[in-house]
């Protein structure tokens, strides 16, 4: 009997190992299952989605390079083949630039999907406080699918978080591009409803999505869908909002951030990755890897004041537009600004009428005259086609070195052959990166690759 007490003690000690010790939670990161607690967590997740766009595989470098090269606006200095294949429109599926572009876009989509799935699970109060952020997530998802569908055509449509551990379930096949576009429109319309008119901090009105940003992108997406009526309606909502949007002088446009003209721009932190890739020489501190395609020079009239801002010569022609390293922040990337919307308006008005109209011409001339060019006259255009072509060329000159949209524009409007010399329609879509097909055997390849 005298041992009873020690037995008891022994049993207590034996069974002591507590469960808490095997339920460690991370300190310097947060477990995914417990991440979304309130609206602040939602905002931080949305911010991280924007930050994807500023990465080196996205608008920080490769995404812009790819379509600027395809637009034949720039070329690689020593014609390194992975870049030269974009300029020559001879891409191969193994291209090592394409895969990171593809996977980075989906990384952003995944982050947006997380937010879209998480907000409805919050308590009602936080759901309400997260409304704007949810709108941003819808906007960003649309923005990224818009890039994907224009580059690759049919792509896997992923609209829910990827926490599935079943490998077969995540090997998603391609969805036809019409359905992708439908999803983009639906997302933008949802964003339009949810997004705020403006942010408390002024700079965020251009750097984050607002109601107007959603409308402007809806207009652009409708343009690509050839839905000119809806396009015009959305365009006018933005263009007529003169309190917030208007043309500014070239000096302001190219030397300041956050000016009245921009609808959406991406900001870069000074010591993060910044967009300094196009300028080649001091004092611009660039990579020195890319030169301007000298054919571009032929597009400019001598009195075009944009030329001096955009292209300079220091032994080689290099892009100088709005890429000066500022002291406080690095240069932003202009994704969409009023000049482009005006040129879209010019095109759409003309297309709706089947012929150039004075109103269409007026929109075109607003952009031309700001550049110091003389106004075009109705008599300058023989027909709709010559007007459209003129608008496209004007747009190319206006937004070159920004996001490389001329490549998509030329294909959309059927001018790729005429303006870029690309007659093989298979080249109008990039190949699905082979590295992704290896990971996902359910993917098919675009024709011609």
């Amino acid at each position, binding site marked *: 009997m005298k*041992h009873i007490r*020690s*037995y008891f003690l*022994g*049993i207590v*000690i*034996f*069974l*002591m*190992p*507590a*469960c808490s*010790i*095997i*339920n*460690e*939670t*991370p*300190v*310097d*990161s*947060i*477990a*995914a*299952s417990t991440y979304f607690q309130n609206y602040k*967590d939602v905002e*931080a*997740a*949305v*911010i*991280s*989605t*924007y*930050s*994807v766009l500023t990465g080196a595989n996205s608008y920080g470098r490769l995404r812009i390079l790819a379509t600027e090269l395809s637009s034949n606006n720039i070329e690689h200095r020593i014609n390194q083949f992975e870049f030269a294949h974009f300029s020559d429109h001879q891409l191969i599926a193994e291209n090592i630039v394409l*895969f990171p572009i*593809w996977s980075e876009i*989906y*990384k952003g*989509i*995944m*982050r947006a*999907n*997380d937010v879209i799935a998480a907000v409805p699970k919050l308590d009602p109060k936080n759901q309400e406080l997260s409304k704007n952020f949810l709108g941003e997530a819808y906007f960003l998802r649309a923005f990224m699918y818009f890039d994907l569908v224009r580059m690759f055509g049919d792509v*896997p449509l*992923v609209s829910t978080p*990827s*926490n599935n*551990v079943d*490998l077969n379930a*995540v*090997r*998603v096949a391609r969805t036809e591009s019409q359905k992708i576009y439908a999803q983009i429109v639906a997302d933008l319309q949802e964003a339009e409803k949810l997004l705020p008119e403006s942010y408390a901090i002024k700079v965020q009105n251009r*750097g*984050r999505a607002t109601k107007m940003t959603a409308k402007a992108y809806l207009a652009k997406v409708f343009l690509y869908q050839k839905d000119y009526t809806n396009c015009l309606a959305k365009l006018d909502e933005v263009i007529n909002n003169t309190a917030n949007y208007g043309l500014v002088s070239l000096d302001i446009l190219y030397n300041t951030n956050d000016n009245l003209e921009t609808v959406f721009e991406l*900001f870069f*932190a000074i010591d993060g990755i910044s967009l300094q890739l196009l300028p080649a020489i001091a004092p611009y501190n660039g990579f020195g890897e890319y030169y301007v395609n000298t054919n571009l020079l032929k597009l400019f009239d001598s009195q075009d004041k944009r030329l001096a801002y955009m292209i300079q010569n220091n032994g080689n022609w290099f892009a100088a537009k709005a890429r000066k390293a500022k002291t406080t922040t690095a240069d932003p990337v202009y994704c969409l600004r009023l000049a482009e919307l005006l040129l879209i308006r010019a095109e759409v008005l003309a297309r709706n009428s089947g012929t150039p109209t004075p109103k269409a011409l007026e929109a075109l001339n607003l952009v031309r005259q700001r550049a110091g060019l003389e106004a075009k006259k109705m008599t300058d255009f023989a027909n709709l086609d010559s007007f459209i072509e003129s608008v496209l060329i004007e747009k190319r000159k206006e937004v070159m070195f920004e996001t490389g949209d001329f490549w998509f524009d030329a294909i959309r409007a059927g001018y790729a052959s005429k303006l870029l010399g690309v007659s093989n329609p298979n080249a109008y879509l990039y190949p699905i990166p082979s590295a*992704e097909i290896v*990971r*996902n055997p359910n993917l098919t390849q675009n024709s011609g690759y």
Partner: protein
Amino acid sequence: MKKSDSKLFFLGFLLLALSTATLQAQNRIIRGTVYSATDNSPLIGVTISPKNSEQMVLTDINGDYTIQIPDSVRFLQFAYIGYLLQEIEIGEKTTLSVHLQSRPLVLKLESSADSVQEQVVAIGYGTAERSQIMSSIASVSSTEIEMQPVASVQQAIQARMAGAYITQNSGTPAGGIATRIRGLTSINFGSEPLYVIDGVPMSNYTNFSNISRINSVQQGNNYLATINPSDIASIDILKDAAATSIYGSRAAAGVVLITTKRGKSQKTAINFNSYYGIQEVSKRLDLMNTNQYVDLIKETYINGKGTLNPSLTEQSVDTDWQSLLFRQVPIQKYDISMQGGTDKTHFFVSGGYFSQKGVVVGSGFDRYNFRLNLDQKINNKFRIGTSLLFSQDFHQRIQEDFTGNAVLVHLSLMRPNLAPYLPTGEYQLDPLINGRDNPLATAETVQDHATIRRLIGNLYGEYQIGNYITFRSSLGTDFIASKENFFRPPSTSYIGRTAGGVGIGIQMTDLLWINENTLHYKRTFYGSGASQKHAINFLIGTGVQHSSMDRIQAYASNFSSDKVPTLSAGASKGNQTNTSQEAWGMVSYFSRLNYSFNEKYFLALNFRIDGSSRFATNKKFASFPSASLGWIVSEEAFLKKYTWINQLKLRSSFGFTGNQEIGNYTSQGLYVGGQSYIGLNGFAPSTVSNPDLSWETTKQYNVGLDISLFKNRFSLTVDYYLKNTEDLLVNVTLPTSTGFSSSLRNAGSVENKGLEIDVLTKNLVGAFAWTSRLNVSFNQNLVTSLQSTILTGVGGFSNITKEGIAIGSFWGTKLIDKKVDANTGNFVFEDANGNGTTFNDAGDRQVIGTPHPIFTGGMSNLFTYKAFDLSVLAQFVYGNDIFDFTRSRYEGMQGVNNGSLALLNRWKNIGDQTTVPKAIFNDFSNGPVSDVWLQKGSFLRLQTISLGYTLPQSRLQKIKLANLRIYTTLQNIYTFTNYTGSHDPEVNAYSQSNTANGVEYGAYPKAKTYILGITIGF
């Protein structure tokens, strides 16, 4: 098994065990005197203890003793330092007087495979006699360790134990060492065995991400460098599942038990131990001189049609960079230890200093260590004790391997026609090759210092409950505080100039604590007339451990001067400053039952349940059972008549072990910060969660045989094992449309099978004695299933791991002929995929070799003649390949690097028959990963030759010393090998990787050492 079940299970066991504890036993008293057999003088302080018991008494000044023992005790053991242990059956006697035989020198030095029955082996949560062990355990004793001066624990094991393949990745003092017990059982995680020192499982680098190694990148520090080998009493390696499964989830890669010395009841003995040696580089590379280099460069440019900068062919300077970087330096060690005790208190205390300068300028290692081991008997039932180690290590590293300015890579590439210094006395950076840093400047001026302070301690209490049960509780800790300072001055290297110099400071603390509680029940029952003997040994226990790490990193660049390395001198503080914290915890329940019948038939069962914080909610717990059976055939009547058979033992075992060495939170899916935009901080998922993430489980079969013949003059141990590791933790690639590139899954299995042979022969006995021991281990590794293909190594793809081949097989293009095309001077590669091209064609790659040896082993020979002893240890490795990346760089024939003398045989004219292609500037067609750079890595190394002289007892008494030995040792004196690459065939550039073994890239050369040492006992 669910957790609640497991608790019930243990409660049941516990009650079962306790129910037998209340039986009381009768006592009787034995008396006697102990004499020395040599001169019949009484021996004072001889330890007398019942066999298998903790109880003991000492003889008094007249050699007399009295001991009170339970009736059940049948044998008494008599132990005395310098004498053979004697075991005597008591029978009906009440008086036992004994003459002890003094222990001859040769026996003292014999290795642990010696099948002397008295040998005690650590088995985890206890010890057992070697003869009673039916699992596979290899051991090294303190005498073997003391025989030769080794710097670390692993070196004490290297080449001495079957089944343990130890690779010293580089010659860096206290640099990383890879230990593989019975092959690679994991693809991505934890292949180092679990080291347990005096019951404390030591922390290792895989506990936390990012612990150390600022810029030395691949080569970590040896985390066992802390331990002074002189403090070690024995090292036991648990190999088969029956032995390891008591350590459950951490045991798949084997368990190494280190037991340090403890005091005994004896007169205080003081030992002083010291050696001093000189080291030098064991082998230099044969590099070209200026004339030979200039010839090559001219030719390179002519063939390559490049524009040659005439300064490249400057011939007025001829620098031997190796002479500048390599040096002769000392290695030295001073130890003092005291041990002794009364019948109540035992102590062992030691202090030591070890210093090894590196054979490459700018490197070295210093260690100060202090140990206190104490045991105190409070009363007959209660005992407490402690083991305590404190040490401070100072590592001074040079930039190795893949770092931007790796000293040894640049060393072999430097042009000989460049002077190391400018006329102004400053270091010269190659003005013609941008980024080619001066290795002398890098070695001398870049600081990479680490100070590691470590406390490993264990406190235990042991309480005897009744006669058969012992309760033991212990609390242990492994506390590491490390401090690393890195400084790259702003002016002495290209890479330093770009950022204006870089300074990094890292401080890290890692605190592990562990509490374990065991109940140990031990009893022998006798059947009818004592002819049937049932021995039961039952252990159950629980354990809980927790480990947490805190790390602070600070960073600065833009230093104004080369002279001030502290971060205060750096103008830009940068964004690499951060802190991090991680933790993991584990709870365990374990038990072991040993049963033997008549000491002939043995059964052992182990069962352990571990729960780890690292695994997903549904998979936290796992159980690891094992069983072994043994039969001592030589105890059977039909063999007993053959007296030349001393022992014949058959063993077999089967069981499970696990591996939990993955990231601490990997299963959870994580959101991390720092994803900022527009001045706001963002949080984003970094890993995808896997709620089913579970343990890697290794299933192991083992059969073994132990034979001792001819009065133990021939002993043989053979083991065959088959290990199947399932649910391998593998990063499986995902479609990136998920937003992730991979996810950690249990998605593979690997098989290791092998044969281990250990032979001990006493070739000569008597005045001139000669003992040999040979161990050979064969292991075969095969990936039996894998959901993804893993490419690693040089250029990201020199090694491949996929189904159907060994982990990390070499992957490259194959030469059609082992020489260059006599017409073109280029290699002709096999167009394996038949697409008409071999240039830059990934499709032509195939398995071209294996980094895994077919067999490895060692052979030791010990000769003794009177007071002299001579030991020779050789290590051998056979059948592996080495991918020599350094050579592919300096013999690539496309650049302006210096190269080896082999390049003098390069192809020059049509018709030349040679194995070295033509030199052609900027033409990389000869340079892909191919079997051109693959060499056989087999070698036989004369590891240690040691000659010692021990002063005879008669002389010792005159000078009033207990012991005096002087010795001289030669280490790494010669290596027989066909490997012509770098300094040494023992290479492993990617030491932290399981999948990229056998790659050589700028390895730190190993030292050849000449040592003189002395051991004095007072």
